[in-house]
């Protein structure tokens, strides 16, 4: 079985990320997996509007903008999915009556967009210094029509797939058997066995994504530490 981009079925696309490239945002990150690219800018904790503030915790607001066209119902759905994923991981009670605003902008999309958006958000929140219980990493896999399961599918593969699954896990991912995933999105026709297989593959993939994100953050922190000491 060969994939259009000659990857092996369990291989992720080459990832790339950069942190803190936006000036106005308190924290920002860009997460790229070849032709899928997402920028995320986080503001917070900032003053919340009176009508939306919560007395005991910070409000999390997510805005997702697609690369082409104005916002659609699907974008709203992604917004709410990301909000509910991160709401539980942000230590919101440490900043009562404030707002954490997460802005996500899709730069280009070639499949596995929601997992890229979750990864970018995770990085941007860390960059902004928002207190988190743990980092979140996500991965997508697709079951193709010939029952082959591929990790990190491109849009072409998703269009041809029988079902597509996205999972997000808290750190450490290996604990996911006890904790379970933070976010699951499964679409299409699939059997329970296929689902379990996809779950296992995504655990491995998410672990690798998390390791990559950690190195990126470590790289940035060491760079900054060097500047401070000299």
């Amino acid at each position: 079985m060969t994939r259009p981009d000659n990857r092996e079925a369990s291989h992720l696309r080459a990832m790339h990320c950069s942190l803190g490239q936006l000036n106005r945002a308190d924290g920002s990150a860009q997460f790229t997996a070849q032709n899928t690219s997402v920028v995320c800018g986080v503001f917070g904790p900032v003053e919340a509007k009176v009508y939306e503030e919560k007395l005991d915790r910070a409000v999390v607001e997510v805005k997702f903008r697609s690369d082409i066209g104005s916002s659609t119902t699907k974008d709203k759905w992604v917004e709410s999915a990301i909000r509910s994923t991160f709401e539980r991981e942000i230590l919101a009670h440490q900043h009562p009556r404030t707002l954490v605003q997460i802005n996500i902008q899709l730069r280009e999309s070639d499949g596995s967009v929601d997992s890229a958006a979750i990864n970018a958000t995770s990085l941007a929140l860390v960059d902004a210094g928002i207190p988190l219980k743990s980092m979140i990493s996500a991965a997508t896999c697709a079951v193709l029509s010939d029952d082959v399961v591929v990790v990190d599918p491109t849009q072409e593969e998703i269009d041809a797939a029988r079902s597509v699954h996205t999972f997000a896990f808290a750190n450490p991912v290996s604990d996911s058997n006890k904790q379970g995933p933070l976010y699951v999105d499964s679409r299409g026709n699939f059997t329970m066995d296929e689902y379990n297989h996809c779950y296992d593959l995504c655990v491995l993939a998410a672990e690798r994504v998390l390791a990559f994100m950690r190195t990126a953050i470590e790289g940035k922190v060491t760079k900054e530490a060097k500047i401070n000491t000299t």
Partner: protein
Amino acid sequence: MGAEIGPSNIEAAFLLEALKKGTRVDGRGIYDYRTLKISCGPTYGLAEVQLGQTRVLARVSCEVTRPFPDRPTEGIVLFNTELSSMAGFGLDSSRSSTQEVAISRMVERVIKQSRAIDAEALCILAGEKVWTVRIDVHFLDHGGNLIDAASIAAIAALRHFRRPDVTVDGEEAIIHDVRERNPVPLSIHHTPICVTFGFFGSAGDMLVLDPTLLEEQVQVSSFTITLNSHREICALNKAGGIPLSPDQIQRCTQVALAKVDEVNEKIQLALKASTA
């Protein structure tokens, strides 16, 4: 809440005092652009422009639609600019201020009404099928002078874009897949580029090119001139602010002419880099 808080009096006074001595707060000369970085691709029609702390992303896409009944042989050009809360906290398209509307309008007018894109070349079958070209401009970071950055991003994205090739056989139009046949670039007549000036002082006697956010907040008037590489003026915009003398406009035009050539060269380099 939400509204932009302007600079403090001390900051504003410092900026003006420095300007009187011919110095800008960020150390630039008064006719200098900030560092301009343009990157195109890898997807066709994607351009990101970084002008100092300002960052703008432009995305061009196309689809086949029916033409407007009164213009059966012309393709459609759609423009979408949204000042999102990403660019700065509190900026939001739902309660856009007049300034934000002005920015979107200006960029749209520059591209669409100067007829930079050859609309007739977008026709596939007269009255039946035409290409709709859509330009989405996303503002990622607001560091001042969004107009210039947006116009550069839009032009770079349009020039970088490739649409699928089409062959017409009688009444049938065949749209070739990108892998089947090389996609073709859009036919673009000219490349209008905006150059913005900010004026300071009670009589507007001090001017700077490419104002930063701080300078934009202090300026008493702004003036945008749009030129293409053929040294033609495509649009002028001076909405409100204090009155300016014709001499000042003349001077701005001379400066802008030189700057537009520089910007066009940069776009050319970025396009070349993306294909290499």
